């Protein structure tokens, strides 16, 4: 990162100055595993193997989350993705498999085109990352060690999901006013921060999940196949 971040030269993390973690080693291992696994998902022709690679990729993602101090999200990722979604996917594979180890080949030309497009896309994304990144306000050396005392408490997360304002750290996207006695963060952050409450989105997502599950059950219910099996 060549340039200084925009606007936040004096922004200081609350925990800065404390114990710092050297994440380099773990990051590179996990990132390599995740990236390779995701590429293997694309490359693998066997769908169940692809699912396995996907497992590694998702697990690696959750590792990244843990690494980034998002313990709750990481655990959720594991529980929901690996324990739920992926099992569901494999179920799907097995319910729709016509023979053992089925694979559907993709043509070489398609591979070529896809490769080019993928590289282009990655290039575009990378370029857009490096051409300007006003969102970075905490330098890597200010990142604190994860742990029960330093990472964002899941209680805080849950309370902000429940919309308990006093417990919620302020945010700038939901428009709630910052209480006068809120003292976390610097003055500059206080200016832009506002309180967040995600109770309504939480409820919406819950109801959405319920509706979707009912709908999925309806869609996937057993019914007579259309047309005779030739």
């Amino acid at each position, binding site marked *: 990162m060549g340039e200084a971040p925009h606007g936040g030269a004096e922004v200081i993390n609350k925990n800065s100055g404390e114990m710092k973690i050297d994440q380099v080693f773990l990051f590179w291992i996990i990132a390599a595993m995740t990236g390779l696994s995701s590429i293997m998902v694309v490359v693998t022709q066997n769908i169940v193997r692809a699912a396995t690679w996907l497992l590694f990729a998702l697990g690696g993602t959750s590792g990244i989350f843990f690494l980034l101090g998002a313990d709750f999200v990481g655990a959720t990722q594991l529980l929901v993705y690996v324990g739920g979604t992926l099992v569901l996917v494999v179920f799907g594979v097995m319910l729709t498999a016509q023979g053992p180890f089925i694979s559907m080949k993709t043509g070489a030309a*398609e591979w070529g*085109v*896809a490769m080019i*497009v*993928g590289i*282009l*896309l990655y290039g*575009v*994304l990378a*370029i*857009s990352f490096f*051409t*300007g990144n006003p969102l970075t306000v905490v330098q890597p050396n200010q990142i604190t060690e994860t742990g029960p005392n330093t990472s964002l408490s899941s209680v805080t997360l849950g309370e902000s999901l429940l919309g308990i304002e006093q417990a919620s750290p302020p945010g700038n996207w939901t428009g709630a006013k910052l209480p006068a006695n809120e003292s976390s963060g610097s003055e500059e952050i206080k200016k832009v921060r506002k309180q967040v409450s995600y109770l309504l989105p939480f409820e919406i997502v819950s109801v959405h999940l319920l509706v979707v599950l009912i709908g999925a059950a309806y869609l996937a219910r057993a019914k007579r196949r259309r047309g005779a099996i030739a």
Partner: protein
Amino acid sequence: MNWFLDVQEHPGLLYVYATLLPLASFVLLLLAGALRTALRPAPGVSGSNLYYLLGGDAPLRSGGYIATAGIGSAFVLSVFGFILFTRDYNAAFPHHDAQPGHAAVQGQGKTAEKESDDKADKRREQFDGHWKDSFDWAWVKTGNSTTSAKEGTVLKLGYKIDHLAAIMFLMVTLVATLIHLFSIGYMGEELQPEVEDHQVHTQHGSLRRRGRFGRFFLYMSLFCFSMLNLVLADNLFQVFLSWELVGICSYLLIGFYFERRSASDAANKAFITNRIGDAGFILGLIIIWTYVGSFNFEDIFHKVRAGEKDPSNTRYQFAGQVVRGEKVGFGEGTEKLRITPDGSEVVLFPLKGNAENIAEDKTVPTKINPGAGDFGTMPYWLLVTAGLGIFLGCVGKSAQFPLHVWLPDAMEGPTPVSALIHAATMVAAGVYLVGRCFPLFVPESRLVIAYTGAITLFVAATIAIVMTDIKKVLAYSTVSQLGYMMLALGVGGWVAGLFHLVTHAFFKALLFLGSGSVIYGCHHEQDMLKMGGLYPKMKITALTMLIGVLAIAGIPTFSGWFSKDAILAEALGFVHVNRQHGLLFLLPLMTAGITTFYMFRMWLLTFTGKPRDHHVFEHAGESPGVMTVPLIVLAFFSWVVAWGSNPLNPEKSYLEEQIHHAQHLSVTADFGMVAGAGEAAGEHTETVEHFTHEYHALAGYLALGIVLLAIIFAFVVYWFKVLDPAEAKEQFPGVHRFLWNKWYFDELYSAILVRPALTVAGWARGFDINVIDGTVDFLGRATVRISSWNGKFDLGIVDGLVNLTGNVIFGIGYSFRRLQTGYLRSYVLFLVLAAIGFFAVLSYFVAKTAAS
């Protein structure tokens, strides 16, 4: 609806009910008939139960009962109405009882007069509320006055009852009831499922058709409704509607046996002839609507005649006429009469005489006072025209010269129809309307009316002498009697004319029904020359007809005596004042004799002497009770209907008194008119009325003498056979032929009207075929040719362009179509490509912005 049922408050509604009752029976019969027709099964198929309940193939007799009940109920209501009306009238106008026939009471103290005037006004108001009402029916949109129901822009339906209407109601309903009753018997053979008409010949022999009993009574009911509505009406428009309804009913009934050529011709003739009259009527209506803005009789009269109480109204002799108005200055050396019903002015045109007194440029009528009463200005000549137009309608309807030709032909209808038309309804309508619109007729108009009547009565009577068809004799006698009425009205004998209308209705209905009975007895033989000696066979018919003959002849104590004497007295009074119009008395006097002669001739030929046709004689017989009872009832009324306190005094008739009241109520009161038209001569002190009273006895004696002579002559010829009519015919062949051919009226009309019309029609047809059709054909061919060019252009160039566009677009689309592979994966790829492009463009612009 409460209003409609509030008879206590509006006893006049009784008459409305009486009017609507025949309409109800008409509707009932119409619906039943329609239902029956709709349910009629195909031949050989059994119909529904309802069909047989409605009579099946044969008409139900109950149709006749329904119609008779309807009109009979109307009669009962009319009786009640008449009683209530006379009582109410006597209470409202007490002093008119004391001096009937006088328009105003003179010679009382001024204060008393004023007081009584106030009271009279109040009473009058109340009385009007009882017997007069109207409601809005349709708005005629004139100009921009669309929102307010401004007077003069609204057509109203309404009723107004006076003595004349009440008596007409009594007469019409009674006569019609009896005719209905008679018809139930007379039309009996229409009850069969199949009737054979011997007068119509088809290639399979005589025509066989279904019975039309119900249809006959259907028409009769509608006829009665129309006539009653006409009598009921308080405005010209309603009268006109009813007028036309009467016309169509007469058309339908005359043409009841429409399979007969003669019947359908007669119906057409009656209808078309009436059209001519109605044209005049419409003309009159248009003039009145334009200049008066109302069809209400009282409105019209108020506006064309000054009020009696208006002090500014004095009578002036002007241009040979008597008018009411105020003389005001009109420039130098000229004068103008202002007639001020509503403060408006009427400039009267000089019809004759001192035209030089009025400057040419001042003769143009000008609207002096636009505003509320801006219809008040009517040129005198338009007033004359309107009156004559309405009278022309009456001429057509009442079969006056020169439009009398349809009436004898109308004998083609069933005899009860003839009776109804001749006695009570259609022809009476004309006379009634003349009476009703009397204030519209200025002296010139009245003179025309009088002469028309005089000519008619004489012509018709002369023709009647030679007729041998019993119904035709009666028909011409009707025409003649109607002429009497018109004459009476024309000479100012308003009461006498309408009096005669009523009495005539009874005895003419009696005579027609009697003749119907004879015809029925003789199996539809109408020629008197084939009858004779029928008296023993049908005594009731003969005796009742004799009463009718005596009544029409004017034998004392019979009803005709009262009315005819009154007419002759009026005519004599008029002639006494206006000596130059002597014919107006001489002709009716002579005709009274002629009438007597031919009526006795008819009766003697029919009922006395030896039977001339044994076939007819042997089969002749008295009619059933349902036909004779009406005859007896009518005979009774023909005798006594005009009696007053002293049956031997022709001036003391109760009926005449009542009609006098009507004259006061509806014609002369407030309209600046008096009954007598003799003032036309300018005799202010000696009125025609005076002379009428003076010469009443004289006229009566003269008439009686002539009548007696005529009776003697008739007996001499047809009883004692001293003179042989055949010899007379041979001696005066020209006269006979002239009379036999009805004064060549039909031929005259044919020559001057029909043939030219046909010729012109032929020319028109030729023009149509050659010129118009040719033009159209040419245009058509040209259009086809142009269209073919156009089609080629369309196909070649327009369609070509459109197709080219379509093909180009199709080609482009076809080539782009390959991009839509349908593969989900390629769509994803395109999506990614789009994202790449988007990012690329975005980052380019971001970099550019950052750089700047």
